[in-house]
């Protein structure tokens, strides 16, 4: 710029570079705006989930769908996903500590707390892998087939499924069920409808649940899990850079740690809403 030559140093005019009108560096500001756009992407997914959930008469009950724990424990609604939430919250806390150590320019502190954050991210991914594996291989849910249904009338089963249901088990309208596979074939159970407290001759078969459920679950938790995975990759890179002393030489010191910190907290923030919509409501 021609006008800057008079003083001999660069003149700092807002919005022409060199100055920081928002008192935040270019990198941090752009991280914020990336997160805004990412928030809209996630909101798009979650709003689609809400609209499709409203659009069908019944929806799989989360307390029934997500009630398994590792070690063959069943019927413990919300417990496993609460553990996952706490793992992510804890890793958010260790990230805050890493940023604080960075502001103190304490290299060992940064590396230590970032290491804990990475461990948290990996545990979360491990939990998610277990959850997906249970749903895909144990319960045969796919993006097209949703075996989790809800009864719309009372009835009594004619046959058992080898799990919780035996011949003669009764159910009410609103009760949840899962259709199992036997020898690779879907085996929906037959039941007699109960009307006015009396068993009738009307025989019906369990139906599959709302089709969109599997696709929504896998795409939304998968998109979030992919954010966690890429977060772990960047945390690792930045932790190694910190450890080798790269940031000590830089003018803006440990700002990279602050930027990945913003990203990591955002991933935690998205989980708050995934947790709300998929598991709590």
């Amino acid at each position, binding site marked *: 710029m021609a006008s800057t030559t008079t003083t001999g140093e660069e003149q700092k005019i807002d919005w022409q570079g060199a100055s920081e009108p928002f008192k935040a560096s270019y990198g941090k500001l752009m991280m914020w705006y990336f997160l*805004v756009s990412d928030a809209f992407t996630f909101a798009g997914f979650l709003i689609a989930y809400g609209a499709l959930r*409203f659009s069908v008469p019944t929806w799989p009950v989360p*307390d029934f769908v997500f009630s398994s724990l590792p070690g063959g424990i069943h019927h413990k609604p919300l417990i496993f996903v609460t553990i996952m939430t706490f793992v992510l919250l804890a890793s958010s806390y260790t990230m805050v500590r890493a940023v604080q150590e960075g502001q*103190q320019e304490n290299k060992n502190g940064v590396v230590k707390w970032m290491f804990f954050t990475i461990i948290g991210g990996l545990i979360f991914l491990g939990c998610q892998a277990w959850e997906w594996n249970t749903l895909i291989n144990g319960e045969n849910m796919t993006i097209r087939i949703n075996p989790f249904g809800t009864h719309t009338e009372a009835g009594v089963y004619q046959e058992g499924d080898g799990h919780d249901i035996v011949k003669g088990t009764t159910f009410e309208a609103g009760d949840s069920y899962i259709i199992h596979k036997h020898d690779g074939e879907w085996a929906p159970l037959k039941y007699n409808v109960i009307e006015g407290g009396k068993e009738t001759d009307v025989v019906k078969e369990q139906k599959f649940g709302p089709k969109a459920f599997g696709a929504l679950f896998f795409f939304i938790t998968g998109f979030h899990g992919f954010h966690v995975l890429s977060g772990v990759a960047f945390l690792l890179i930045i932790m190694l850079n910190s450890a080798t002393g790269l940031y000590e030489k830089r003018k803006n010191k440990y700002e990279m740690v602050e930027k990945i910190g913003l990203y990591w907290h955002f991933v935690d923030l998205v989980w*708050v809403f995934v947790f709300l919509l998929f598991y709590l409501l």
Partner: protein
Amino acid sequence: MGHTYEESKKTANRIITILGIITIVEVAFALLGKGYIIDGLHFPPLIMGVAMIGASIYKAYLIIYEFMHMKYEVPGLVKTVLLPTLLLVWAIIAFGMEGTYWNKRRAAPNGTEIQVLGDKNK
């Protein structure tokens, strides 16, 4: 930031404790309201929904303002980040209504007129 190291450490400890407690309360309330703790006890879905959404928004506020340091940013930055998300309020209302309409459309027999807005007949 105008804060000493010890002060910000204390703040972080406080915030993570609050976030943890809210999460436990949320889960306990969800289990209680759906009758898993006391048999036969059920809260109305509206109360459950409002409580859960309220708690989640408060958690989001704590994460953004404390952990992401939004509290210490200049007002211009705060506005450019937070105001655009207000558009989502419209999107949530619009798509919620649209989903409900699809549901009614599906349930209605072929050719039946269905009322959507101001449905006071029911």
